[in-house]
């Protein structure tokens, strides 16, 4: 934690941590405390006063079928994004790992979606699937699929999943490739001499050996889909049609800033904070330790 050799006591370290601590208190801890406090209040209908109601906001939330639906929808969305993005990346990394010549060119061409802002990723996908001019919507029409994510909730959900998974491919690819390249070549060669083909080697050697990376990426992807996809959803569907693409984070935003329901939005914030804390604890306690050979 601390160096064996260190500087003598002086006011200097306080000055050094001051900016970070000041920002942390003013913009992180204080607002989080406010959210916690407001989640116990209900404002009266005219906004003049508020009443302390203990856990009524939370009770109302969990009795609200809309909120329960949002919970399930967010889980479905996150799992689909993680599965789609990770399986594509695993496939590409598995093949890229075999390439001797041109590996860096492939890597360069595969990593740039990481640089695209979520809202831009949303804009690109919504453009390709635009029901009137979009190129993919047009191709789908040719094969008999009527695409309109403004009306069809299932299609809207599919579109946000595609955009979110596309953006995350670069990240997953880099981590999978790094994990595969860390496997000693002698192990793979020994298996090849024993007559194991590429597919067999992949499933019996490479895949089990990179399972810590898979677990790590699963957590990271779920965190990403939960908290970093607001821009995608805002650009693609704005939560519609009929709430079919509203996630938990999107609901905090729309209830707070559009619905102006302070208590309800704060209670949702508190629930999300608990979830982030749980995910962070899992990430720090178990990832890269539990699954080891």
């Amino acid at each position, binding site marked *: 934690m*601390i*160096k064996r050799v*260190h*500087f003598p*006591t*002086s006011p*200097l370290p*306080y000055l*050094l*941590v001051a900016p*970070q601590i000041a*920002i*942390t*208190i003013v913009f*992180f*801890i*204080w*607002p*989080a405390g*406010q*959210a916690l406090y407001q989640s116990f209040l209900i404002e009266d209908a005219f906004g003049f006063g508020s009443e302390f109601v203990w856990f009524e906001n939370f009770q109302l939330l969990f009795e609200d079928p809309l909120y329960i639906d949002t919970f399930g929808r967010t889980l479905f969305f996150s799992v689909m994004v993680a599965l789609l993005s990770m399986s594509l990346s695993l*496939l590409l990394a598995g*093949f890229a790992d*075999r*390439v*001797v010549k041109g590996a*860096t060119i*492939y890597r360069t*061409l*595969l990593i*740039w*979606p*990481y*640089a*695209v802002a*979520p*809202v831009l990723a949303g*804009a*690109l996908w*919504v*453009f*390709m699937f635009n029901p*009137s*001019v979009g190129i993919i919507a047009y*191709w789908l029409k040719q094969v008999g699929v009527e695409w309109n994510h403004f009306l069809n909730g299932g299609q809207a959900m599919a579109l946000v999943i595609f955009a979110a998974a*596309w953006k995350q491919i670069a990240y997953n690819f880099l*981590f999978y490739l790094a994990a595969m390249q860390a496997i000693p070549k002698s192990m*793979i060669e020994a298996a090849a001499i024993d007559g194991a083909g*590429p597919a067999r080697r992949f499933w019996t050697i490479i895949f089990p050996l990179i399972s810590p990376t898979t677990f790590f990426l699963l957590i990271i992807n779920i965190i990403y889909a939960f908290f970093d996809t*607001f*821009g995608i959803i*805002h650009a693609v569907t704005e939560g519609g049609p009929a709430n079919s693409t509203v996630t938990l*984070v999107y609901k*905090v*935003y729309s209830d*707070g*800033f559009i619905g102006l329901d*302070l208590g309800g939005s704060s209670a949702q914030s508190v629930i999300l*904070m608990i979830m982030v804390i749980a995910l*962070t604890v899992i990430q720090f306690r178990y990832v890269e330790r539990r699954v080891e050979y």
Partner: protein
Amino acid sequence: MIENRPFFDTLTHVVLILGIALVAFPIWITFVAATHDLARMAQAPIPVLPGTHFWENLKLALAGKIISGIDTIPVWKMMLNSLTMALMIATGKIFISILSAYAIVYFRFPFRMTFFWMIFITLMLPVEVRILPTFEVVANLGMLNSIWGLTVPLIASATATFMFRQVFLTIPDEMLESARIDGAGPIRFFVDMLLPLSRTNIAALFVMLFIYGWNQYMWPLLITTDSSLTTVVVSIKEMLDSGERIPEWNTIMMTALLAMLPPILVIVSMQKLFVKGLTETEK
């Protein structure tokens, strides 16, 4: 490759090229849309091959004539706003994190662990989760519609602090011992020893944080209602909401192209630093 299997080798390249095509297709279509005129972009199916109006669209976008008949603020100004925001967030995060990591690793003082845990907690409180009360704090401080309100609340960083802490912990103790024997004080040691030793880490972190800052969306959307502070990433959404009109895809997609160009250039040109930054900050 281990064994000689010509068919499988070909398959490898085919799969990778298909993968690249899939990953690059949305960006290709964006580029194509930015090279055609409005009339062509209004009729389905839209083209998949580039046209000849690239420079025209670039001029329209840069001059702020994205929606015909309405003057918006020029895209170059929005890009300047994005650049200012990205640079302030990246340098601000690096500055305050390296200082606090230095204090926590090299000094023993009361409340050291309290400070450490306070910084750690920020990791569990992403802005998306406590957006409303944070907005209220910024509003009460009179920081709405200012570059400070836009950047300062995002500057605290647990990941950057942890990364610098890791770097400092790998620097041998003998360094500090010999520096002190030579009469160097804490500031001298920091400037002459630690800064040069963590140069590549700072650069790698800068690449990551520049992209993070440039791509901010929810926060600037709420903090800047004054259009002179709009960033280019935020502007795209406003352009998509053209109400009853048909979106003018040629100029919108040109703007989208300009909005993603700087971070893509940074990633591709500084690939090594980017990969280093990615793997070091996430673990």
